[in-house]
């Protein structure tokens, strides 16, 4: 019989059980009593889907116990790190039909549940010398230990089962190929450009791939070779679940292997599909990239193989240079093209830009717009359609690149752009070649001469140098007053 632990209760009858900080009755270890191995597998499957066993792996101890009545059950004991861990274990155990206990050495009492939030305490201890005494509200039973179980062995004995919706996760994969298929597969992977390395396994009887099977390690399985690797007889594709364990494509292991760190470093466990046992392979020490395993081919040189230059005109493969949006990081604005009213905005902007920008920015006015070559060190003028330099004397709209990626000199030569001309590719597909001499400094181009006038100055003669007026008398003729008359 059990009684519920009351709040603030400190004295308990079960040895090795106390009350933790939250008042919950807890021992040093936890124990899950499972009806059989299948329940143990179910418990582990559920538990590992939620939480990794890393925390309790070092202390977990599955054991086969036998009651005094001869019933065999599985007791899975582990360190009770905290009541949180115990709560999760109890939840999973309840789901799988198991019971959860807490205790320290031999006596384990039922762990808390909804009816007893602080746990249970036994009214009376069992008078037995059994190795395990369990106290439950429905029973109190003593168990003897029959044998211990190994989790690794358990995991290896479990067969992979078909997966409802097989998929390729972004992870490494292992390919096991029969010896005859190894070399062709090596060449195929090398030709397909798949990053893979290969090793030759020693002959083992467990392998269904004959003697000297090939083991390939792929960093990922490209879509183009998935059909080859999954449908070719003699080739098995295993997707790595965790380091040292992989499950064949289309199947899954009952346990979440990634949460079961039970695999050894220097071995590889492959879980094949179907009801086949796991393959435990020693990890080969040498893996060679498949590209190094491909046989080199020496081209034969014969008189017929040497290409002869034809005297006839070579057929020309004309390819138009096009602009494509570029995904590369943005480049420096090297030029811009102003159209319509943007030139007037440039006039306004010129009042605020730095003298360096005014001096280094160069401008050319054409019938296709006003072109600006931005200053290399000064601030860029953010007006108009912006261009980046795609090569010497070549400018493309910002965010575009030229395809095919020809050398600048070759492109200028093929387009017959004269020397000293700058080639602008526009976003609308047209292009312009502007003489470099047409570009003048922006400061010079903006300068509008103000009207000026020279004020008229009066020349003031020096007083001392003033000439004296001198009277000169001329002859007056016979009739001096011939025109001098009185006014009416």
């Amino acid at each position: 019989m059990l009684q519920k632990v009351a709040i603030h209760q400190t004295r308990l009858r079960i040895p090795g059980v106390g009350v933790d900080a939250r008042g919950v009755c807890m021992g040093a270890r936890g124990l899950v009593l499972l009806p059989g191995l299948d329940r143990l597998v179910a418990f582990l499957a559920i538990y590992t889907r939620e939480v990794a066993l890393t925390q309790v792996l070092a202390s977990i101890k599955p054991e086969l116990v036998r009651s005094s009545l001869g019933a065999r059950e599985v007791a899975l004991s582990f360190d009770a790190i905290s009541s949180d861990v115990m709560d999760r274990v109890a939840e999973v155990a309840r789901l799988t039909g198991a019971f959860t206990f807490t205790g320290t050495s031999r006596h384990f009492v039922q762990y808390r549940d909804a009816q007893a939030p602080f746990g249970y305490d036994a009214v009376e201890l069992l008078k037995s010398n059994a190795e395990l005494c369990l106290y439950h509200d429905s029973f109190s039973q003593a168990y003897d230990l029959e044998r211990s179980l190994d989790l690794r062995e358990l995991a290896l004995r479990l067969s992979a089962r078909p997966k409802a919706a097989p998929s390729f996760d972004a992870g490494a994969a292992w390919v096991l190929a029969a010896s005859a298929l190894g070399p062709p597969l090596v060449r195929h992977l090398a030709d397909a450009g798949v990053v893979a390395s290969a090793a030759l396994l020693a002959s083992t009887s467990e392998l269904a791939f004959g003697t000297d099977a090939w083991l390939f390690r792929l960093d990922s399985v490209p879509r183009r070779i998935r059909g080859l690797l999954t449908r070719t007889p003699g080739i098995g594709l295993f997707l790595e679940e965790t380091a040292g364990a992989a499950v064949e494509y289309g199947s899954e292991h009952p346990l979440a292997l990634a949460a079961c760190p039970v695999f050894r470093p220097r071995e590889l466990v492959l879980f094949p599909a179907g009801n086949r046992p796991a393959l435990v392979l020693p990890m080969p020490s040498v893996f060679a990239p498949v590209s190094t395993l491909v046989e080199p081919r020496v081209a034969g040189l014969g008189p017929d193989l040497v290409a002869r230059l034809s005297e006839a005109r070579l057929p020309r493969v004309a390819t138009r240079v096009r602009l494509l949006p570029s995904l590369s990081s943005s480049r420096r604005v090297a030029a811009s093209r102003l159209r319509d009213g943007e030139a007037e905005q440039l006039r306004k902007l010129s009042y605020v830009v730095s003298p360096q920008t005014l001096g280094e920015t160069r401008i050319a006015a054409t019938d296709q717009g006003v072109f600006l070559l931005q200053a290399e060190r000064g601030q860029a003028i953010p007006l108009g359609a912006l261009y980046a330099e795609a090569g010497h004397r070549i400018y493309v709209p910002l965010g575009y690149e030229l395809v095919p990626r020809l050398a600048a000199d070759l492109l200028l030569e093929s387009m017959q752009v004269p020397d000293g001309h700058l080639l602008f590719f526009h976003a609308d597909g047209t292009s312009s070649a502007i003489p470099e001499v047409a570009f003048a400094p922006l400061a010079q181009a903006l300068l509008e001469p103000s009207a000026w006038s020279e004020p008229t100055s009066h020349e003031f003669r020096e007083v001392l140098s003033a000439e004296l007026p001198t009277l000169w008398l001329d002859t007056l003729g016979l009739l001096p007053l011939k025109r001098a008359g009185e006014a009416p």
Partner: protein
Amino acid sequence: MKLAGLAQSLTERLLLPLMRGGQVRLVEPVGEARAVELSRALAGTRLFDDVEELRLEAARRWSPVDDLGEVAAEEWLLVAALNDLLQLTNPALARGLGRGGTRKKLARLVARVIERAGPPSTVRAALSRHALFCRVVELARVDTEVSWWTGSDKFVGHPPPERLLAWPNLRQVRRREERVRLAEMPPARAVEFDALLERWLFTTPLTTLGTSQKSGVPFRWTGSMLGLTHAPAGRRLALRVLVSSADVAGALKELARAAEPLARVDAQAFAHAQAFIAEAEELRRGFLQG
């Protein structure tokens, strides 16, 4: 001679050399009729930029003015009158037909023109006239007397011919030049000249005031002078002209002497003249102390 040509000749041969300095070559006598016609035609026009420029330059010596307006019709009358007045000193005037009658007739015409011009009606007009004619008392005539071994001759207002100066040593040529002031220019027969010169000078009172020591014409407190010095602006202008004259002390003595007759006929005018002289004297002392 058409009016335009007459105006240009008067300007280029008389007015500009008089203002700027140089050789003044008179125009043939203008007479009253043409002078009146000329003054009416040129009134309100600014045909001669040089005249405007020189007039303004001269006026700025006494007043900070920027524009004196166009040369008035009365000023053109005075220019014509000055030309004819100076022609009275021309010996050639007596060589033509009519002789003494010609001079008298010309003197009468000059008097009528001067009377038409009259005294200045505004301070600006007084300043403008002074600016035009302030150098008239500087006008001089060069008379050359040439003697040689068989005779001698006097050339008034023009140089002797070269032939008279040839072989100076052989012919014992002697040449003597004399600068003759304005008041001393008329020949002995031209008795009308002094009175006309005085009348002409009284039409520009500032010139009379500023040149009383040099003109040879005794200063008189005329109505135009008293009227000008009554107006505050005119008084300031007259003081400036007086103080800027060459011999201020002598000018003040001349003014004081001229004021004495006023004491008998017009006590108020006399007091006004005395006050003006006192103010000018005080101003002169201020200048001297400063």
